[in-house]
């Protein structure tokens, strides 16, 4: 099967193609070199249209226990957004924590072809993958959370051989079918179980006497030496605390040249200036990260409306539970492994703090000059549901729209938004393509995604060139998944099951001996049952596994 997309203006930054008219050929699901003499089975005349690779969301909470708690907690979230089944698609419900099928359809209808769940608790990995298995249309993958799990903390406290720690990190990636490792409030989720209510970068965990700095350095180094492409994904200490910009800057410096990704930095960039003792740290963060090439970031933009925050950071989620709207926060301590907190939240443009969060996120986007080290996220659903992305893209691409929006927010926040008002930057289509395709693919090590070069998967999105960029990105004209048309004019026309991307770094299988002893002594789950077999995803969830390459293990 050969198809040809002809006449489109291609934005493919990974291959240095910037809006030139190019024909794209896809054969058996993969992009191939132009075959001018061949007779395609189908030709799509997309003259004047904008063509990009399928979009990739590298940080979106789409599956796993905390999302299902959020769904269970918030029937009111779904009541207003019911979705009927069709001949083709399943029923479900939407808004901030949509049901799984609806999540898949809406991502695809927005031109996305891959989504990554960034906070999979190893103890909950099986369920996270099952939920993703019921999320059609998109490829997916998950980051396993480490850093508050007792096995790791015990190893670190006992100053175990670093190679053994690396083996454990690699074993976790295998056992949970993950593509990366995330650390959330390093050590803090565990510390909260010991009744510590905060844990600064250099503050000791009361039981293990290790610090978040040590945890971050150990995990970041382990990942680097294991050859895993995506660097340690860090949700740092003190999320949401005014003044946490100091912690965040210190964390960036703490990486000591190791590659790290600082996630949803908007929530981590708060100063204490101004009458309300709450101010933007975006300028300081972006200045430091700009000159720290080992660090990448995503923003976690807040957009106004009802949503639900859901995080592994039980310590900080508990702390903000008084802000819950509606007032029904959930906190959970989990399996000597991790925790979670689910706090429904309504971001109001007339709230000073919420408006400042909006300002800080936009400042971060507009001040940071290396799109290859920045991803477009709302930290779905924490800052806003993912289908607000087109609105966010318009805010970035359209200065006058941004200025109009700024007029509507809390007036005190407007008073602190002089910097934002002064920023005239408008993102280009190439930059958007980097933020939403090429950058995430490169960072996650997805060799054949996020670009349109020969050998890439036929995941392609075609947009009408609408000056209203929100309308343009909300309703792509065509979306191809592995060379098949799956969305037309923003509606699903074919349902497909995406693959699950994982990494499989080398490790010494002897690690299973102490691990097995640990599970037998302390856990209510056997190690053999903890591990998630390939066939659960392949047969049980009717999926497929793609093992992305890793570099050679180093010591």
């Amino acid at each position, binding site marked *: 099967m050969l198809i040809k997309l002809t006449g489109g203006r291609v934005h493919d930054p990974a291959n240095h193609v910037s809006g030139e008219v190019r024909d794209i050929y896809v054969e058996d699901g993969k992009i191939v070199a132009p075959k001018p003499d061949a007779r395609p089975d189908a030709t799509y005349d997309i003259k004047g249209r904008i063509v990009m690779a399928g979009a990739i969301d590298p940080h979106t909470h789409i599956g796993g226990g905390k999302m299902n708690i959020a769904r269970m907690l918030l029937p009111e979230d779904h009541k207003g957004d*019911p979705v009927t089944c069709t001949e083709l698609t399943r029923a479900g419900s939407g808004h901030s924590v949509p049901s799984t099928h609806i999540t898949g359809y809406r991502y695809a209808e927005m031109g996305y072809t891959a989504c990554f769940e960034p906070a999979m608790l190893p*103890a909950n990995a099986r369920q996270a993958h099952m939920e993703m298995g019921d999320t059609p249309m998109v490829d997916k993958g998950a980051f396993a959370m480490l850093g508050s799990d*007792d096995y790791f903390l015990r190893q670190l406290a006992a100053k175990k051989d670093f190679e053994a720690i690396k083996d454990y990190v690699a074993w976790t990636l295998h056992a949970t079918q993950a593509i990366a490792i995330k650390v959330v409030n390093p050590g803090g989720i565990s510390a909260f179980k010991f009744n510590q209510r905060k844990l600064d970068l250099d503050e000791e965990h009361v*039981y293990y006497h290790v610090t978040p700095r040590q945890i971050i350095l150990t995990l970041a180094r382990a990942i680097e030496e294991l050859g895993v492409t995506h660097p340690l994904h860090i949700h740092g200490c003190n999320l949401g605390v005014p003044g946490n910009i100091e912690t965040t800057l210190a964390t960036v410096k703490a990486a000591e040249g190791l590659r790290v990704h600082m996630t949803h930095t908007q929530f981590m960039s708060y100063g204490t200036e101004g009458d309300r003792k709450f101010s933007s740290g975006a300028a300081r963060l972006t200045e430091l990260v700009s000159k720290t090439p080992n660090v990448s970031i995503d923003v976690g933009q807040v957009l106004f409306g009802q949503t639900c925050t859901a995080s592994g950071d039980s310590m900080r989620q508990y702390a903000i539970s008084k802000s819950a709207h509606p007032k029904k926060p959930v906190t959970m301590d989990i399996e000597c492994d991790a925790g979670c907190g689910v706090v429904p939240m309504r971001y109001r443009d007339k709230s000073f703090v919420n408006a400042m969060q909006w300002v800080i996120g936009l400042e971060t986007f507009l001040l940071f000059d290396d799109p290859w080290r920045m991803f477009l996220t709302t930290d779905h659903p924490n800052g806003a549901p993912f289908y607000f992305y087109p609105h966010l893209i318009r805010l970035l691409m359209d200065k006058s729209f941004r200025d109009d929006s700024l007029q509507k927010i809390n007036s005190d926040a407007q008073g602190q938004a002089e910097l934002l008002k002064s920023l005239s930057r408008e993102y280009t289509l190439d930059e958007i393509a980097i933020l939403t395709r090429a950058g995430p693919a490169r960072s996650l090590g997805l060799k054949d995604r996020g670009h349109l070069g020969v050998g890439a998967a036929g995941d392609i999105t075609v947009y009408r060139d609408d000056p209203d960029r929100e309308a343009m990105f909300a309703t792509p004209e065509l979306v191809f998944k592995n060379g098949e048309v799956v969305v037309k004019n923003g509606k699903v026309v074919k349902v497909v099951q995406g693959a699950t991307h994982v990494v499989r770094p080398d490790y010494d299988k002897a690690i299973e001996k102490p691990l097995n002893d640990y599970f037998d002594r*302390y856990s209510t789950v*056997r190690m053999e049952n903890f591990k998630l077999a390939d066939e659960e995803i392949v047969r049980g969830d009717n999926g497929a596994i793609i093992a992305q390459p890793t570099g050679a293990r180093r010591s």
Partner: protein
Amino acid sequence: MSNSSPRQPKPERASPTVFKNVVNPFCGTLADDLVVERSGGGLKVVENGSRESIAGFERKLPRANPLVNGKDADLSTAIAEAAKLIGKAKLPLFGGLAADVEGMRAVLALAERSSGIVDHASSEALYRNLKILQTTGWTTTTLTETRNRADLIIIAGSDIQRIHPRFFERVASPPDSMFGVTARKRTVVFIGKGLDRSGAEGAKIGDVVTIGCKDEDAGHVVALVRARMRGFDVTPPKRSGVSRAEIDALAERCKQAEYGVVVWAPAALKSAHAELAIEQFTGLVKDLNQETRFAGLALGGGEGVTTAAAVCTWISGYPLRVSYACGAPDYDPYRWDIGRMLKDGEGDVLVWISSISPSLVPPPTKIPTIVLGTPGLALKRPASVFLPVGTPGLDHAGRLVRVDTVVTLPLKDLGRAELPSTAEMLSAIQAAI
């Protein structure tokens, strides 16, 4: 799925096959350390058995044919009859729902296509919890966390020993713990004089305390503890059997605990409107978390109810009691309660799924009933269609969600009998509609 009638046990083998790390699907806490042998005589639990797991694994499976109106039928005839009944129904009710993840996925797919209602046999108990979750939120914990960390475990008005015979062995008094909170340093408080304390006695638990109220008054006792902690001058009534000193002592234990866990099982709470008792339990946790650490642990979860609620939630957006009558899922925990609907004459066909234990039978009803059941299911009257299905974790592989809602466990095919899974059977029905 094979077309032959699914009734033959697998052929006898010379030497027994031994399975390790076997999950017990007959209890919501899903112990996964069983060792089970299969021989010509069936299955035998050789290690880590309990009353209910031995009964479940070792039950002699009777021969079971597909039945239409009580008479033997081919599988294909029975499936066609089921498809016909569901296909012409205006409001099919999908109840029971004792199934694995794959089975629940198939239930939801078929309910959606046939405009049906989805509700589990024990969701009345589940809803005691959900009413509180959905109005106030809560703070909870899990089995492994409790096992290693809790220095105070309060068993609140629920007979945990009866429901979960291995809870004390696996969670409350394990031989070892990660943080030195061994059983010897642990206090277990029973609120309710009728609760079976045998799991705690004899075990090496440091302190075992009983608050001698009626079991159904546990919520009142906890309310008094909360009131005393806030400094209110309240005294339990004489008839309660509890003294103010006992209340104060319990309050003090709670405040001194480093990690306290309040345990209840919603199905076991005997008081009317038991959600109000649960609100007190989770309220106690909330009060104490301001200064120390406390968490709730809701148990029960038998017959796959946790799995049913979890899968229904991620697929529809709602935890059971969902109607697809209008196409999109509609949620109403009162209106779409299948028990109530049957009493009130609503619905025109009942599809009852009971693949785990032989005792989960449909409520009495006059509407046609299609049963997907484990052979030996103790039906009170013949169903319109009976389709024998396998038990996940014995007859086929599958997955179940544990009662604490976080851990999902893989179930093995122990090769007990050649029976199709609930998922396979429902898919065949859906294909035939």
